[in-house]
């Protein structure tokens, strides 16, 4: 039975599922990485994902155009991010708690809108899998890597893009400086507030995109609490990734692949109670961090309000 796990179709299945499931986590976690690197802890990701998922779904449902849905999802997410930035930067509110508030608001609001505008679970034709010509014909690799919908490719493309922004642009430098030592950045005339507004809004936009990747690409439905806590896992994955896009990529893939693996464990009848199988991704993510040897550069000002000392 355990040997069955190493059958080709199982491994291909696990990898393909892992890549697909990683998509929403990647968007949301990389967005959160930007925010945290600049010093803002946003625990409201899940609420932003839900609002994005709803908005994207609603627009796609009514226009039939997933691109438009995607755009609106990103805008709605960005708006939520902007609100979070206003709360945590301008109003200097405690970040953890305001994030929980944003989460609750998004959870309730997306559901309320869903009930009032859709009323019942509907389906849409969102982004369909896009077989990349030639590449998708490669045996095994083709299925695993090149037969997904466009938002999956987008998520993986986001990793090098985020890496580039963080390491090769002036914006990236400002983000890291503001997160590590906001007073130093401020003393050089860098606007701490502006940088944090930018990252948190970007984080919101990516959370909205993450939600849309569920509602109009992977699942093509919307339902109350569609994300079911994925946003919190996304926050956890930022810590897993040690605030680097590549780390987040590793974490997302690990978590998702183990989730895919546990589904196979059940199907192959490996005698583990299903509840323990479901636990596997959570346990393994923790174990992976225990055994990983790594240097962690937590943004020193994470979740701390910046004030010039004048109050």
């Amino acid at each position, binding site marked *: 039975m355990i040997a069955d796990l190493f059958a080709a179709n199982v491994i291909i299945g696990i990898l393909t599922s892992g890549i697909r499931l990683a998509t929403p986590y990647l968007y949301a976690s990389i967005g959160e990485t930007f925010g945290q690197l600049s010093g803002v802890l946003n625990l409201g990701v899940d609420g932003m994902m839900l609002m994005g998922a709803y908005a994207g779904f609603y627009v796609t449902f009514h226009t039939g155009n997933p691109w438009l849905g995607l755009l609106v999802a990103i805008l709605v997410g960005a708006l939520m991010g902007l609100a979070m930035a206003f709360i945590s930067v301008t109003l200097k509110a405690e970040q953890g708690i305001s994030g929980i508030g944003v989460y609750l608001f998004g959870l*309730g609001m997306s559901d309320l809108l869903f009930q009032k505008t859709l009323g019942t679970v509907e389906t849409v034709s969102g982004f369909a899998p896009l077989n990349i010509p030639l590449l998708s014909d490669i045996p095994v690799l083709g299925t695993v890597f090149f037969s997904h919908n466009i938002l999956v490719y987008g998520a993986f493309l986001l990793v090098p893009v985020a890496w580039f922004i963080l390491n090769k642009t002036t914006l990236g430098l400002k983000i890291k400086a503001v997160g590590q030592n906001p007073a130093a950045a401020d003393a050089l005339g860098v606007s701490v507030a502006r940088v944090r507004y930018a990252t948190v809004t970007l984080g919101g936009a990516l959370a909205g995109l993450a939600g849309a990747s569920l509602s109009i690409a992977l699942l093509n439905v919307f339902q109350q609490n569609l994300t079911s806590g994925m946003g919190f896992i996304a926050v956890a994955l930022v810590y897993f990734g040690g605030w680097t896009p590549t780390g987040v990529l590793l974490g997302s893939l690990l978590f998702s692949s183990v989730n895919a693996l546990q589904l196979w464990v059940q199907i192959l009848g490996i005698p583990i109670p299903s509840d323990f199988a479901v636990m596997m991704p959570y346990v393994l993510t923790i174990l992976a961090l225990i055994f990983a040897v790594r240097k962690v550069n937590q943004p020193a000002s994470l979740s701390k309000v910046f004030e010039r000392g004048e109050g």
Partner: protein
Amino acid sequence: MEPKKRIRPINWLGPSIPFLAALAAFVLGAFMLLLLGANPIEAYAALIDGAFGSMNSIADTVVKATPLLFVGAGICVAFRGGVINIGGEGQLVVGALAATLAALTFTTWPAWALIPVCLLLGFLAGAVWGAIAGFLKAYYNVNEILTTIMMNQIAVQLMNYLLSGPIMDPVQIENGSFIPQTARFPAAADLPRLVPTRLHLGVLLAVVVAILVWVLLWRTTLGYRIRAVGLSPAAARRAGIRVEQYAMLALLISGALAGLGGAVQVLGVNHRMFTDGSATGFTSSAGFNGIVAALFGQLHPLGAIPASGLFGAMLVGANKMQRVVQVPSALITALNGLVVIFVVSSEIWRRQLARRQEMGAMREAALATAPAGEMT
């Protein structure tokens, strides 16, 4: 010349700011209610009635506040110790499970023995759940936010496992209905009721625990060390305090109190354990709301007492409102979020006010001494 009368700073304004903020959120909520075709005045009257309208509703409010206070008191310890515990949900669940196991095992024990054992086991289970995160942080540098989020899910699956077999109500299996719940606990495991409402002894226990946490943090050497570690690990280490141990201890205590809260909840309210597959079904998000209550209470366990009460009132009242004006419950969740956002955002005005008052007092003092100063 007649001395000008100076207006004294109004010192009730500060404490009233969070209430004004909550009010603003409710005003926004009123517009949402209007859009949904409900009468906001009727709705809010129902909310207040639901939270405070009768003995029963007051009891419901207090009962609702109880787990918030257990979690909140624990959060005070964790955050003061510089560690973040987002694992209240899981800790409530394992605490309840441990109490459940005891209640189902020692069915013949009298109440005076059974209840303390159940509570103790709940406390210990929560402690273990918190300590795992603490241990991994202290000795493997694994971030506790990640661990506690993951441990929540692990607790849920553990609960699902236990309730779908090992401790499922035998009657359920016999009937073939397989509802994921345990048998009702023996009556000896019921927490005594205080008055003929749902108010149970756990409420008092929560208040006592909050006071004990205050004693712990500000009156004992242990609490002093936890606070020192939270404020400056480097200074604490130099002063001979074992930073890792105390960070772990803070998470352990925090988890233990949440676990105790879970045990109280199951013995005082549910009298049996059941699952709807999620933690929320049992905790009603007390693991998160407790964090909010603690922070509203300025991370002070005594401040957490009224904060939990008000939060409980809002949750209970909102349900009544949903029943009376028949708006979707989703509105309540959204409104809850708005209140949290508005209240936490209003802190800035409270701080500014406090500062302005301090400066005002200073200027007054300066003016009083100015003539003498200028003559020299």
